[in-house]
């Protein structure tokens, strides 16, 4: 294969703990520096060392990619397991990079593979008439699929660097990640300076590692001279002078800091904890003499304390948030209802993972929609918003605080593991256009009534305001916050809290409620939310040659923007609306039915814990449109 491509898909695979994430960062930085667009989904087990993990990338010379797809042009494997579980992901005429030292390994020699996976792989190989060894699989790919095999003896190449720098041989395995980066960079024909940039950025505080990895790259570059640039991207034409290379976790963390977060609580949980780590790194800084922060990042004893203390900080006037996933959110629900009862502006950043129970701690899902909308006892106003990509996540994080403070409600910002962990090159957000809205505040005073009934949103004084005393209670309370069981006050107070939802719906701009992409008079309308956005938009583009499609990205999930949705779909035949979600139930369809009365029959579901890929999405829409399928369940991906 020697070709010039506009986009290239890559899978980097290896055991957890072998430095795959480092490979991803180095490669992504090098490519972004060159001006290419990058997106990379990270798939990994709930495990620290040894289980199979992989990075699924798409790189582009013409745009910032927003989804990943199969097959991929390059499979770079650190180990035998990667070859066995990903060989069928490689495109015809693609490339497979593998370790010559593991070529004789068979499926039976790989203890980290689950029995079910081994059986499945053996079954597939048996049907193809291929022995279950790395060498046989590679030669099958070469003969039947035109794949270029690139065998590298990892041990002997790394030994050269070990000898050159007198590195302790026990440290040799640390260089596998650099070797993978080098091999891929060579195949892509990246110039040396970009590879160097990648290593130097990655090892900013450990220059010697950058040098050693660069030496490894040069050794490989010379020995692979005939393979250099065999899968070359065309010159970049995206046109951005600079980009950010960030995960969804990073984006939310940065936005919280910009948006004035002052208290963040969390209990360690995947895939939310990285966000808090990032905030903690910036808890206090001084920039040209200006203080940024302080943000107190509090690792609490559990999620109950995380929620409770975030509420406490909000009462004292701090912009306050907590970040969690499904199991943690469950523990926060009693606090959520206290925040609803006491009209506390607090933000819960909720990264969904596979449930129920511990479920799939490191895999993605969108199965907690109903939980966030309906969890807790009693009725009160809450807001649930979701973000479709990294940029939306940034702006929505700030919007979440604005909504929380403007309406004095708890806000749940519903994200997922896919977005949390996916690294993408994106434009730098526009800081100048951001707004911070703290809502109606009051200086307090001797006659201050925290829950003054003269308006739906009572002006807020903070605990500690001069000459002001106020009360809060989870019990039904009067305007001062004192417990009351009088039926008339109960009705007034209870209604006041709930009726805020009406003004939230009235005052929230349509573009915050939903994004509408494509043709409003489309043949088919696809409806989704959160991380479905990128893959749906790409599918709409691909199919645009033969179908007029529209994608509706619902961002305000609660209170549900029924009017705006009805405006778009009112005249669309019911069998021409398709709901898509990473769940079994495609629950957004139920939420739409409850709020608008429109029953959606066509559904695309995926709940393997892996993201919907572009090829799957296109195929699913085609099955619905051309073969009249009602429900398509997707399951591709190791």
């Amino acid at each position, binding site marked *: 294969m020697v070709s010039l491509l506009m986009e290239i898909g890559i899978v980097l695979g290896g055991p957890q703990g072998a430095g795959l994430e480092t490979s991803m960062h180095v490669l992504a930085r090098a490519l972004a*520096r*060159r*001006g290419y667009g990058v997106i990379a989904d990270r798939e990994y087990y709930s495990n620290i060392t040894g289980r199979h993990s992989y990075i699924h990338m798409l790189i582009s010379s013409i745009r910032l990619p927003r989804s990943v797809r199969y097959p991929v042009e390059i499979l770079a494997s650190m180990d035998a397991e990667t070859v066995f579980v990903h060989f069928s992901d490689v495109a015809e005429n693609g490339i497979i990079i593998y370790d010559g030292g593991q070529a004789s390994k068979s499926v039976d020699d790989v203890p980290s593979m689950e029995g079910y996976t081994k059986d499945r792989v053996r079954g597939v190989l048996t049907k193809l008439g291929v022995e279950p060894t790395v060498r046989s699989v590679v030669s099958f790919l070469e003969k039947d699929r035109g794949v270029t095999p690139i065998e590298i003896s990892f041990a002997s190449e790394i030994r050269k660097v070990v000898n050159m720098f007198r590195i302790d041989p026990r440290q040799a395995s640390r260089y596998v990640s650099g070797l993978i980066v080098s091999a891929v960079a060579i195949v892509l024909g990246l110039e040396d300076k970009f590879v160097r*940039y990648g290593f130097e950025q990655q090892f*900013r505080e450990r220059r010697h590692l950058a040098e050693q990895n660069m030496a490894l790259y040069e050794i490989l570059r010379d020995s692979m001279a005939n393979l250099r640039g065999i899968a070359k991207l065309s010159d970049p034409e995206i046109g*951005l*002078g*600079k980009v*950010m290379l960030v995960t969804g976790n990073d984006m939310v963390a*940065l936005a919280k800091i910009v*948006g*004035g977060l*002052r*208290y963040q*609580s969390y209990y360690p949980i995947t895939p939310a904890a990285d966000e808090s780590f990032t905030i903690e790194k*910036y808890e*206090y800084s001084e*920039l*040209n003499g*200006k*203080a*940024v*922060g*302080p*943000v*107190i990042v*509090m690792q*609490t*004893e559990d999620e*109950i*304390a*995380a929620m*409770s*203390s975030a509420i*406490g*900080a*909000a*009462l*004292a*006037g701090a*912009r*306050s948030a907590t970040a969690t996933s499904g199991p943690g959110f469950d523990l926060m629900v009693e*606090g959520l209802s*206290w925040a609803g009862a006491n009209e506390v502006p607090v933000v819960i950043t909720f990264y969904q993972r596979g449930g129920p129970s511990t479920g799939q701690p490191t895999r993605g899902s969108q199965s907690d929609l109903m939980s966030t909308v309906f969890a807790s006892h009693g009725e009160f106003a809450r807001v649930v918003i979701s973000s479709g990509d990294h940029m939306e996540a940034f702006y929505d994080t700030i919007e979440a605080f604005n909504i929380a403070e403007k309406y004095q409600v708890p806000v749940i910002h519903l994200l997922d593991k896919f977005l949390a962990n996916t690294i993408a090159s994106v434009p*730098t*957000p*526009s*800081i100048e256009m*951001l*707004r*911070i809205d*703290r809502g109606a505040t009051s200086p307090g005073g001797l006659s201050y009534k925290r829950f003054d009934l003269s308006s739906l949103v009572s002006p807020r004084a*903070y*605990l*500690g305001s001069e000459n002001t*005393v106020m*009360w*809060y*209670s989870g019990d039904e309370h009067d305007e001062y916050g004192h*417990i009351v069981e009088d039926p008339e006050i109960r009705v007034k107070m209870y209604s006041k809290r709930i009726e805020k939802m009406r003004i939230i719906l009235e005052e929230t701009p349509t573009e915050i409620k939903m994004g509408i992409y494509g043709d409003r008079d489309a043949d088919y309308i696809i409806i989704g939310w959160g991380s479905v956005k990128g893959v749906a938009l790409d599918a709409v583009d691909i199919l645009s040659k033969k179908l007029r499609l529209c994608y509706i990205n619902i961002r305000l999930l609660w209170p549900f923007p029924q009017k705006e949705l009805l405006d778009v779909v009112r005249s669309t035949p019911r069998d021409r609306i398709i709901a898509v979600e990473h769940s079994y139930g495609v629950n957004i369809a139920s939420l739409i039915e409850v709020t608008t009365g429109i029953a959606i029959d066509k559904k695309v579901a995926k709940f393997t814990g892996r993201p919907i890929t572009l090829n799957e999405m296109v195929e699913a829409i085609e099955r619905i449109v051309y073969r009249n399928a009602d429900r398509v369940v997707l399951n591709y991906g190791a």
Partner: protein
Amino acid sequence: MERRHEYKTSLWVDWCPGCGNFGILTAVIKAFEELGLDPSKTVIVSGIGCSGKIAHFVNVNGVHALHGRAIPFAMGIKLANPNLTVIVHGGDGDLLGIGAGHFVALGRRNIDIVVVMHNNGVYGLTKGQASPTLPLGVKTKALARPNIQQAVNPVLLALSSGFTFVARGYAFNGVHLKELIKMAIKHRGAAFIDVLQPCITFNDVYTAEFYRKVVYELDEDPNWDPIVRKPDEAKEKLLKAIEKGLEWADRIPIGVFYVNEHVPTFEERLNKRAHRYPSTNPANSVIEVGGKPTLSQQEFEELFKEYIITVEK
């Protein structure tokens, strides 16, 4: 002359007549008066149960929180605005049953918060179930059978969790309790007062009559000195406190068990990381100027430069 602040609200106090909580309420109000606490800078955070209502009866800021969660609510308030005096009130079921994890965590952190535990041995507001301080085998009148669970020792738990001020008071020894509350408020760090509180309706074993006979003051011993005066005395004083904390039944000590101001408070630990804290804190730091973030585009890109890649032409 300026009118003195009325530290009691005008609400009718709806505890049972004769409840130990009245003694605690009076002691709290007297302590606040004598310390001259600014009501707008003082917050009572309470849990759920009879004791939880105290937040409404005292005329300072009150946060009547969730069952078991008064401590984390208080923590958020205090860390966000360290200039506030924050006092937690909870029952023994609240603090040592459903909220025990938070109690231990507060000790580990040594945040400058006072915890006053209304210890009556029962869950009063749900009609007298056994609480975590009711000893094994005791049968109070609401129980169908003797208590099948062991009691936790609040003083020992507080000591081992890291509270740097640990005391016990008795609800009907008002002057003594008031002094303990004042000391606890003045203490720098996490302070705990276990208050023996007769429940006149549901606890017919640990009654006022019972306590009157067995309670004695640690200060009766002129040599009793619970204060760690030099850091290397901490272990010795802690062991003595534990020994006294084990006394129960015939003679029950009240007073101060342990004081150690040599342990850095959480606020001081935070100061090491954000050196303008606590004077610049979450509650008083600027987050917007004219409705815009304090960071400019350029400052954003400078602060987060590690995420930004300039494309090389």
